[in-house]
């Protein structure tokens, strides 16, 4: 399947802003997106378990993905 990866704030500075197309095997989870990104330059900026959203909703790492999903890696939020 192919998913689109979005990165924000410090993660975007480190890895590029995206959206980044990513090819994953069937049955992949949101955590697999993080694993795939760890091979990229700048990945040292990612914490052990970055917060995730799938299709603009907070999602656990074990969330199963479907073709066309939008997966976002979200730094600790700092609104207000």
């Amino acid at each position, binding site marked *: 399947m192919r998913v689109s990866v979005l990165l924000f704030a410090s993660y975007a500075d480190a890895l590029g802003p995206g959206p980044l197309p990513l090819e994953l095997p069937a049955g992949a989870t949101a955590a697999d997106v993080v694993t795939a990104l760890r091979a990229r330059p700048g990945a040292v900026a990612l914490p052990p378990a970055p917060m995730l959203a799938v299709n603009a909703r907070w999602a656990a790492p074990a969330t199963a993905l479907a073709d066309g999903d939008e997966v976002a890696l979200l730094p600790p*939020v*700092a*609104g*207000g």
Partner: protein
Amino acid sequence: MSRVAVSAAVSGRLVRTPISGAALLDAVAHETAGAQTAFLGAVRDHNAGRAVTGIDYAAYEPMADAELAAIAAEAAERWPGVRIAIEHRIGTLAVGEISVGIAVAHAHRAPAFDACRFAIEAIKARVPIWKREHYVDGTRAWVDASTAGAAGAPTTGATP
């Protein structure tokens, strides 16, 4: 993001233009609401010991917009009768400019205060918005966990 005036009795949204506390209060005012509360967050001139000259607010926009609307809806559900309007600004703000505004109206003060406090804490915990501070020496840095506390925790250092 819409640019229309705040009108709904229960609303939450991102905006790119200056936030008016008065407009938010007007949006929730009602003959039945004898209590009106508001919270306004503004850009402060210092953080974590450094002089701050401005802040860039960035967001995962569709998600942030949806989360702000959801927080308003949750407040109205948790405190029946609450009328609430929330706006969070994105873009580059100068010191003193309002970054977030919440107005709440209810027949009684306790639900109005409680819903307002709930909303700002929820915004700080779960709305995907980030800020990059500008410092007097010309450098800029994203406010991260080292200065803003753990995600989801109320902060004391980086925010109003």
